[in-house]
């Protein structure tokens, strides 16, 4: 396991621009093992871009992302190996439509970690059982509902045994009746001690599961603190304004 004193993820002076549009304007954050950090803020404020920089799906324009003490953009870093320990769940699920639910989970462990097929399948079945999808193992994603796809995407990431899970608005594309099931799975993960970084618009959920809340607006962390501090006693006027609009 990892040294508790070294953050799992650390960003140093993280900047990201798309063309002339500056999206991230210097973010310094440390996320420690076991922490559940939610990121809230207005659309276009940089939340998702920040999250996507953490596994270098977006390459920072400047600044550095450290994962367990290693600079991810360093030439000597094996990015694929580190990414295996950084699970990510997307707004639009991004399950692999040409593979069955079971294959969605097993393909990467078999290909990249050289796990024997039988063992990978056994583990995958256990994961599917945990999220109530064991009877869907041999179905293709087309036959699954949005909520089922997202639960599949979560266990697909879990099958790599990550040290941290990143969630990019995991319930934003779901029908309302599907949201709870997915949030419960994430909550279960958080309570089991998994380090989670969650971009979300579900304020009730954020308040309930977070150890720490980041309010990202205008490309910076405009405010951060415990859920009580941020939701009940926001100091920054922008936070107050945002919360008054969404709560």
């Amino acid at each position, binding site marked *: 396991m990892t040294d508790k004193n070294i953050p799992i993820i650390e960003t140093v002076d993280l900047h990201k621009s798309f063309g002339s549009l500056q999206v991230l304007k210097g973010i310094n954050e440390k996320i420690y093992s076991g922490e559940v950090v939610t990121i809230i803020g207005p659309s276009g404020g940089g939340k998702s871009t920040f999250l996507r920089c953490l*596994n270098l*799906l977006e390459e920072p324009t400047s600044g550095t992302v450290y994962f367990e003490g290693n600079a991810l953009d360093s030439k000597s870093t094996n990015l*694929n*190996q*580190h*990414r*295996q*320990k*950084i*699970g*990510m769940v*997307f707004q*639009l699920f*991004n*399950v*692999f*439509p*040409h*593979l069955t639910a079971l294959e969605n989970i097993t*393909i*990467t462990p078999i*290909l*990249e970690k050289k796990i024997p097929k039988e063992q990978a399948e056994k583990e995958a079945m256990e994961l599917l059982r945990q999220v109530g999808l064991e009877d869907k193992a041999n179905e*293709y*994603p*087309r036959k699954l509902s949005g909520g089922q796809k997202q639960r599949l*995407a979560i266990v*697909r*990431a879990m099958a*790599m045994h990550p040290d941290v899970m990143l969630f990019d608005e995991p319930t934003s594309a779901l029908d309302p009746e599907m949201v709870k099931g997915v949030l419960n799975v994430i909550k279960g993960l958080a309570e089991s001690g998994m380090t989670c970084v969650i971009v979300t618009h579900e304020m009730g959920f954020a308040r309930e599961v977070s150890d720490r809340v980041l309010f990202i607006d205008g490309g910076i962390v405009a405010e951060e603190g415990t859920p009580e501090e941020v939701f009940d006693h926001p100091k920054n006027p922008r936070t107050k304004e945002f919360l008054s609009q969404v709560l």
Partner: protein
Amino acid sequence: MGKGILEVFIQYWPVFLQGALGTLKFAAIAVLGGTVVGTLVSILHLSKNRLLSGFAGVYVNVLRGTPLLVQMYISYFFIPMVIPALNSIDKIYYVLFALTLNSSAYVSEVIRGGINAVDKGQTEAARSLGMSAKNCMIRIILPQAIKNILPALANEYIAMIKETSLAGTFMCYELMYTRTLLANKYLVWQPLFIIAAIYLVMTLSLSWLVKVLEKRMSVSD
């Protein structure tokens, strides 16, 4: 008019058979070679490296923008001239070389379109799991791309079967060359219909095969 078509076919069927086998061989090489090279070219074309994608762009434009027959002549006469060591190779291979490169240019454009049409989220999901770029392309992107482009790919393959007929110009033994052989026996028009019929059987068989494949690949729909 002379002999009838059926009569000619019964008398000379071994000639046509050998021609048909030649055509099948050339078509198989052009299809397989063109697909492999074309896939690589399409990946180069999509590369972030400007030099690689630029090279692929020029490759496609030149091979699509000049006639196959000219390419075959250049390959047939020019390559052995500048690389004398290659003189010992059967001349058929120069013709096949041009055929394969030409088909790869067309195939690469079809595949490039197919890859572009796959949702970016698929790449992101695979890479975020720690899958290598190569595995992501081979196991996640290409299977989805190929399923979508199968009809367009079938079109290219059908065109390739027909274009192998140009190889007859270089005395390669394929279907069109049987015309030359039989013309020497004063059979001018009958072989043409037999040749056309055999081409039609081949292209229709391929269409049918692709339909079967399409059906099999649609299990995930």
